[in-house]
């Protein structure tokens, strides 16, 4: 592990991680995994919003980055073996709700960070 991992991540870095995770979530072809990834990302970022200790923040951030790598690989694997017929809810539900979710959560997150960073 690099020594630079000890310093806390900046606001832009966290936002970048958050947007990447949501972007990867959208690429899962399986409905349940897609919804879970979106929901879990939003909840995890929200829970970690109020952390103040820099080493805890750094640990949470590097954990998030590792999860992002896992998610990217798995989105690829799932797409290689995608079943021809999708879940009953289909694909259309996902694209609409995810855009809305991203917008609302980004706004929420930015306002949270404004409060934290002063």
């Amino acid at each position: 592990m690099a020594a630079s991992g000890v310093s806390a991540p900046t606001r832009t870095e966290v936002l970048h991680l958050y947007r990447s995770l949501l972007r990867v979530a959208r690429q899962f072809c399986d409905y349940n995994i897609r919804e879970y990834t979106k929901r879990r990302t939003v909840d995890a970022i929200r829970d970690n919003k109020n952390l103040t200790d820099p080493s805890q923040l750094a640990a949470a951030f590097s954990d998030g980055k590792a999860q992002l790598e896992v998610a990217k690989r798995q989105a690829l694997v799932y797409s290689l073996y995608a079943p021809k017929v999708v879940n009953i809810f289909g694909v259309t539900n996902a694209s609409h709700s995810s855009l809305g979710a991203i917008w609302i959560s980004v706004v929420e997150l930015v306002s949270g960070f404004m409060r934290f960073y002063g």
Partner: protein
Amino acid sequence: MASLLLRQSLTKTKPTAIIRRFSTAAALASPTEYEEPTGITMKGVKIPGRPLYLDMQATTPVDPRVLDSMLPFYLSRYGNPHSRTHLYGWESETAVETARAQVAALIGASPKEIVFTSGATESNNISVKGVMHFYKEKKRHVITTQTEHKCVLDSCRHLQQEGFEVTYLPVGSDGLVDLDRLRKEIRPDTGLVSIMAVNNEIGVVQPVEEIGKICKEFNVPFHTDAAQALGKIKVDVEKWNVSLMSLSGHKIYGPKGIGALYMRRRPRIRVEPQMNGGGQERGIRSGTVPTPLVVGMGTACELAMKEMEYDEKRIKGLQERLLNGIREKIDGVVVNGSMDRRYVGNLNLSFAYVEGESLLMGLKEVAVSSGSACTSASLEPSYVLRALGVDEDMAHTSIRFGIGRFTTEEEIDKAVELTVKQVEKLREMSPLYEMVKEGIDIKQIQWAQH
């Protein structure tokens, strides 16, 4: 690099387009016969897409993080963990030991007490038959309940044929075992008490701590089948005072074909092995340990430890949503098993005045089960519901909804809508229901013989 590949593959056409003429991979990639672009036709039923999965007690989908940890061991790190002479063996062995520690951490045990098996069924067999065969000189009695899993009941029946005595404790109408009755049944020659922690059909959580205390008092080994409990409720082998515990991989978002057996070291419990061979897994279970599956189970246990609280809170909300949604629209809905001592992800409902088979046939867009997967082949109503004292007709109409980590609110709402629609349709057609609405008590009717 991964993102480039991802973008390329996702913008391509269907994967079947890249099959070349002389490729040997053709057999794997050809589309299955029952899937068409407009839907699925199987066994005479046509549905527009894959059903919603609400059968988490039968099995759970593999979590992508678990799959990610398993794949390297299928691709490049394929060594046998028992090979001592080269890197492939050493790295496999390290992975197996890491997974062992992860499983042990989830149940509060030491890694030396975990033995990997092929599943909870095998672990149950080793516990019940292995313990009794080892202590067969002095101990001839086994105590279990009527609502155990089939593998435990079948092992007990096998022991009975060999000459042991087995007591099947009855359960109350809420599914819980009577502790005073248990205390009375324990004899000086009782070799094992086997009571499952969370029932797979009705979701009831037995009072394992109290049972453990009773067993400690009488110094009887306590075995519990924790396949449904692992990762869902807090499992602590010290607090529960268990000597043996069966664990299953595919109920906690791990792969199928792997399980574990916890065997206490202080005081040591000894078993006679059911699989003889090269002495792997401390001689208890010989055979090559399947590294990818073991690594998958370890990752699943680690994830379960991290996510248990989050999952439980969410699943509780979903269960209430499901139950309230159904109860709002229709009456005559009975929950089988105690509502307080229950695992939140399991909801077993009986609908009055509705026939079970026809209800299930109409619910093809939701994957649920009636009774448990192991008994659904026969036409008998489930033995667990019969042990609860549920009437035959109510036992036939029971449906088990299983809610898990990946279930969404949309799926619950859709399941509620479909169930209510189907139940109302069936009740509309039912003459029995008409009589009930008029106020006639069905049980008092004298059916005329023709």
